[in-house]
């Protein structure tokens, strides 16, 4: 009797959950099935609470100087509908916030610098178009052509450091997850719509401490949107992007739980040279940290260096941070580690490619 009741209750809850595709305050949840549509989905999606355009890459100057960079534009929706504009209403009434992060890893100079900016949808300080690829946070911008594979232009400048890059996708957008969603947990809506440009040919200029370098290299872009993605008990994630010499790319993320375990929905993608994507469930890869680094700024202890095994990739990979300290301790935002890594063959030590690793939730649990 009791079992029957429990089963009934469970069925009911599942039913209710399945039909609820919005958050309490009206944001859309990322649910399956979802069919991406490009170029529309390169633009902003104000119906979801959280969205980001995440660029990381490895650059080389004519004189051999090596750099890693990160430039991320966030969109945080405060309300799913635009703010009412009326006489007697302040322009600062905003429905959207646009924080952005910018970091340069000077691999040759062994220096790491980072900046953040905050802008709300007021006075044109922050903006993300739903009709074209245009995202702005104060003076930092992402713009692009309206194509499935857009030519994108990145610009950021702070202090004595600046970026001015043109990004050309060499592969079509790689859709992560299954059925159009990348799951972050078991609950309905604990997911995002997530695709990547895994191979962006990059050219442009980089200013580091007032010195201007003409640079070229390889970048990676993630575009992800959803609402209330994280589940109770999750403290953060480890995310890996790897660009191998054979024009293959790997994306992996591992969601960490407070109890020390890994969320079973953690997954990844393996992108073939022709751009086709293979879904990697948690069982298809292993990530073993090989060391730790303690931040002198926040005293957070991060893993540092990994051994990676991915089904479909023959070699065991060793990931080594280009610099130990690539922590962004933002006074107003989230503290995380986002760094350039070198990728080598565990057996021969041969260089296999480059990557970026993101470690969140080590300096206090993450709130999204």
């Amino acid at each position, binding site marked *: 009797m009791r079992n029957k009741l429990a089963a009934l209750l469970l069925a009911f809850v599942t039913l209710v959950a399945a039909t609820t595709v919005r958050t309490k*305050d009206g944001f859309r949840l990322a649910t399956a099935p979802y069919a991406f549509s490009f170029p529309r989905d390169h633009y902003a999606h104000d119906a979801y609470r959280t969205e980001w355009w995440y660029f990381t890459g490895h650059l080389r100057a004519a004189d051999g100087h090596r750099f890693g960079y990160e430039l991320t534009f966030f969109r945080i929706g*405060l*309300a799913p509908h635009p*703010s009412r504009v009326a006489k*007697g*209403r*302040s*322009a*600062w*009434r*905003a*429905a959207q*916030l646009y*924080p952005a992060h910018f970091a340069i890893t000077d691999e040759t100079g062994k220096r790491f610098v980072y900046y*953040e900016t*905050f*802008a*709300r949808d*007021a*006075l*044109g*300080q922050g903006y993300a178009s739903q009709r074209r690829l245009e995202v702005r946070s*104060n*003076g930092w911008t992402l713009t692009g052509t309206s194509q499935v594979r857009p030519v994108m232009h990145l610009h950021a400048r702070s*202090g004595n450091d600046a970026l001015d890059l043109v990004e050309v996708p060499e592969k079509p957008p790689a859709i992560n997850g299954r059925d159009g969603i990348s799951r972050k947990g078991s609950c309905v809506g604990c997911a995002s719509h997530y695709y990547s440009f895994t191979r962006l040919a990059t050219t442009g200029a980089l200013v580091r401490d007032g010195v201007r370098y003409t640079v070229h290299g390889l970048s990676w872009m993630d575009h992800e949107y959803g609402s209330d993605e994280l589940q109770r008990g999750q403290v953060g994630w480890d995310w890996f992007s790897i660009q191998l010499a054979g024009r293959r790319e790997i994306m992996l993320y591992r969601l960490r739980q407070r109890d020390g375990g890994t969320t079973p929905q953690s997954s990844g993608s393996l992108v073939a040279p022709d751009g086709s994507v293979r879904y990697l469930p948690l069982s298809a890869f292993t990530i073993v940290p090989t060391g730790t680094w303690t931040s002198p700024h926040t005293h957070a202890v991060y893993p540092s260096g990994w051994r990676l095994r991915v089904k479909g990739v023959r070699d065991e990979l060793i990931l080594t941070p280009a610099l130990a300290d690539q922590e962004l301790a*933002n*006074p*107003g*935002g989230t503290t995380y580690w986002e760094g350039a890594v070198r990728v080598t063959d565990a057996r021969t030590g041969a260089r296999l490619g480059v990557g970026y690793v993101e470690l969140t939730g080590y300096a206090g649990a993450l709130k999204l």
Partner: protein
Amino acid sequence: MRTFAALFRALVTGYARANVLRAIVTLIAVALGVAASYAIDIANDTAVASFSKSVDVIANHVNLQVFGAGRGFDERALLRVQRLPGVRSASPVVEGEIGLGVHPGDPQSGELLRVMGIDITRAALPNGVDAAQAEANFDLHRFIDGNGIFVSRRIALRYRAPAGSLLAAYAGPRLVHLRVMGVIPPNTVGVDSSVAFVDIATAQELFGKIGLLDRIDIVADPARLDAIRAAIARVIPAGSRVLAPHTRLDEIKRMLASFQMNLSALADVALLVGMYLIYNAVAISVVQRKSEIGTLRALGARRREIFMTFVAEGGLYGAVGALLGLGLGFVLARFAVQAVQLTVSTLFVASHADGLVVTPFATAKALSVGIGLAMLSAALPARDAAATAPARAMRTGAGAEHRVPGLGRASAALGVASLVVAAALARLPAVGDGVPLFGYAAGIMLIVGASLCTPIVLAGAAGVVRAIRGNASTTIAAGFLRGSPRRFSVAIASLAVAVGMMVAIAILVGSFRATIVAWTHDTLGADLYIKSPGTVDAGFQGYFSPGVPRVVASVPGVAAVDTFRGFDVPFRGAFAQLGATDVRSLATRNELRFLGHPDVRALVRSMYDRNVVAVSEPFSTRFGLGPGDAFTLDTPSGRTRFRIAAVYNDYSTSGGTFMMDRATFARLYHDDTVDSIAVYAKPGVNLADLRSAIVRKLEPLRIDINTNREIRAYAIAIFDRTFAITNALYGISLTIAILGVVSTLFALVLERREEIALLRYIGLTRAGVRRTVLVQAAVVGVLAAAIGIGLGILLAADLIYVINRQSFGWLIEWRSPGWFYLEAAGMVIVAALVAAIYPARVASRIQMSQVLRAE
């Protein structure tokens, strides 16, 4: 050192134990003096600290601030500023005040909160918001879009507004409901409890400042600060200023300085009067132990050792008294803080004292001044002791004081000289920005002069007493008075100084009050006055849109309306008030009292829509500018030159006001808002009906509307509140002086034990002895009253014509409170007689046998 300790034990410790009562009286007096001074110091420090916090609430690392010249500046300046290289963050601030617990119509109700509108999404958050945000289950969207507010714990408790509740408040004339999003923990560094935070959007809407900012807080690269500052100056609107964060605070502190200096001066008088008691106490102990001293001298004690012993006794009184005073001062400070805070909030800015600020400096000052002055006071009697010749002192009944011939005349000559110096000092100008240093010096010289003249007056009085025939008591009393001129002179002088201060302040306050009453009578000519509820004075926030006076003018029964708009502007390193009104109304309804009776019609013509102003008298005095002079000022229309056409009487601000035509103001400041409205009724209209008609017509706006009689009463109430603390202070001085009389009479009685015993022996009755003491007390009282009232009149002249003129620039008309002189005199004489009761009893119980045993 061992000898010194032994001497101290022999001469002081044992003696004090035997004279517990008088030791206690002395200690109380010293403690009271130290307490008054300490309490005022604490109150002043607390006022400045809480005030600094309310002005200075900013995030960490802010090293530049932009302020506008008028009512805010265009918010787009922020975009230009934050784009500049080297600017790490730029945070916009919109400020305003909201009234809590306000009952519209009651101008004295409610409390003001200083509301800071900030962009919470920026990196540089004020500390208090950080703390409150961390505490609450914070919803950013509701904060921004739902009129969220962070309040202090004090406010949350007092107005029953926990996180999540709605807080009803007045933003100018509008009743608004704000959602409490979080409570700022107490003792958050840098946040006063009367500060609250809202989103910048909420602030712009609450205060009608759409599109405007009041301030930008900037974190700039410190290595290139000067270059960045110059770059910022180029991109901000005309008239705006880029300042280092403390510049503005310093300007405001300067505004408070003279107010606080006056309070300190009063408190220090209490301290000085208390020191007389130490003199007296040590003098008594010297006199009583002349023979012991003589013996010790004969046994080889050196003069220096004797001197140091008695100085140490003074120091001991000072130390114990000062310690007691610190405790008592701390208690008194609670009341003093309230009084000072009230004045600061009324006159300057909304702030709340959340706890006493006790600086080590104030404590060290109270202790060291207490002990130092005590030792200084003891030095004179200690010198007497040291001068004691061994042989002479060992003789019994060696009279208390040896008489110095010509002492009275020499001292009187010095006294007169001091008075002449005082007169000369009073003619010197103020130092710096209205610090009447020479005025205070003149006051001190007057006190010194009056004190030095006391001996000769005393000698004369003793002669008079002796001339009263047929009464043994008076004759004996006269003898005693003449026998101890110095001690009596000091007692009389200190009482006279206290009386003088009391009289001077009574004259000042009375004259000032009468002047204000006359001024409000002359200048408040309208029938009704309208302002926003919960605001102090007019509010200065520009809460009324220009439509409001038009609506009021359309109410049947209204003959005319005048508007006023004003706020403080930085002027020559300080602040002055800018006022704007329709000058055409001056021609028909003269609301200003011009000095020198200018042709008002011509004046109005010269001021109408021109850069020509009339300035208040304090403005004129303070900045040395009069009719025909000109000054420049940064306005939102750039640097502007104003010519001064006239000076008028004004007591509403101490900083000074310059008044321009409303059209001029609107043109230069792009501001057509109004702070207050004066309403003239048509003849025969019932004011109560008109008042409710206006209230109804302006709904849903809520207003304070008062008749001119109510406004006048309110002005006087503020005045009385401001001076409440001065009353308390001279009360303390007087108490100490009365304790001085008790102490002196005791000293006399003890000194003259042998003589009194002898007089008893030869037939003087107990009543006779009592009478003798009472006659002495009466003489002390009468002389103190006479000298005190004379001194008081001179001090009042100094206060009114020199000190007040120089620090505030107010012209106060002299009013002599005739009845008060009598009252003061009567009070002092009665107090002196009351003070004599106990010493008289002691004297009357002196037994021949005891004294003889001592011999």
